[in-house]
């Protein structure tokens, strides 16, 4: 069973950055993902919002596979800053997992 950590979002969040609360879960981003990765970015962001930290950390390769090309972002009906959110997750992983 997935363990939920309500504080996880605050760990990832930097001032004015990670923000996916406007996401309506419509799936356009996943449909247009250039890498064809089903997790990107809708499910991934949902894991962050729900605080399912283990699921996020299980998918580090996916997080770094994102091209930051903004194809998803330009198609997002909720104007979520997807590329910046992915960069925020990388920042978090670099610090907390890779100790960089």
């Amino acid at each position, binding site marked *: 069973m997935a363990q939920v950590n309500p504080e996880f979002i605050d760990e990832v969040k930097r001032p004015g950055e990670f923000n996916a609360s406007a996401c309506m879960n419509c799936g356009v981003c996943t449909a247009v993902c*250039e*890498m064809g990765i089903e997790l990107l970015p809708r499910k991934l962001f949902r894991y962050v919002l729900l605080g399912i930290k283990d699921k996020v950390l299980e998918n*580090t*390769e996916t997080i*770094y*596979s994102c*091209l*930051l*090309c*903004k*194809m998803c*972002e*330009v*198609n997002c009906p909720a104007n979520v800053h997807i590329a910046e959110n992915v*960069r*925020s*997750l*990388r*920042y*978090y*992983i*670099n610090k907390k*997992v*890779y*100790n*960089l």
Partner: protein
Amino acid sequence: MALPTGETIGILADNLRLRNSVLPIPGKNATRWAGGLGIPRGGETVLYTGMMYQLIPYIEAVNKSQEKIEDTWLVNFIKVGRLMNRVINISGFMGRPSKSLQADYNKMLANIARLLRQAGVEFGYLYEDELYSGALIYDLGMDDVLAAHAQKVYAIFKKYGVKNLITVDPHTTNMLRSVYPALIKGYDLKVKSYLEVLVERDIKPKHSLGAEVAIHDSCVYARYENVLNEQRTLLAGAGVKVSEPPGAGLFTHCCGGPAESLFPKKAKQKARERVEQIKSVAQNGVTMCPICFVNLQKAARGEIKLDDISNYLVRAYL
């Protein structure tokens, strides 16, 4: 076994912190393109290459080594490599850049300088004092390392009294125009891509090329910096018929290049998909980013001819 993400990022970040570039380049190789052009040092307006074109032959050499060790037991040595890299630059041992590739990229930069001159723009260059912008480190989320590096880059511009920057590639344009202002208090540089400057100056063609090319837009120009019309205006002026492949303009598809440093195989697969799209509309393709150019050219395997936009423009406008 994939390349170890943390260690690979660590090496790139250590290089930026210790050696001012993700892959250090000897100063004479970084500035060779400007030889014989007589560009003055410094000035209020400078052509800022951000080293992207010069870095590509080095990135290529290192990527060849990465591809060989990706999915083998040798990746375990990257951890040791990171420790060694803090003392000695290990990328220098991972492959030598091809001389012909260096000559190709140097020619593109010289083209850009000559085009700007033709358009009546007065500009200088910082030669060996010019630093890499940190674009890859930004993408990888190493924001603290980038923030410190950005201060170094900005201090050099200030030392020379620079007020305007003319950039040559989309990634450097984005860094200097959209990322640095958030990192540096009081940032006051005006940044334009050379494509924007040439259109603004209304450069006039001297020859019509009568060619047809498929355009591959850069994701960064298209979706980060809104540079979409300039390349089409300049190519149309050059007498080039531009064919739009599936996924062009604002919705351009990516070349896969951003995945290259960590996942070379994924990058190659994406580039191949893009080549198929370009091939479906024309036998010649034009790019405006050195990363797009190198990735697509490798994936094209000679099936289509790709060229940097500067090589087209220089033939028409000079």
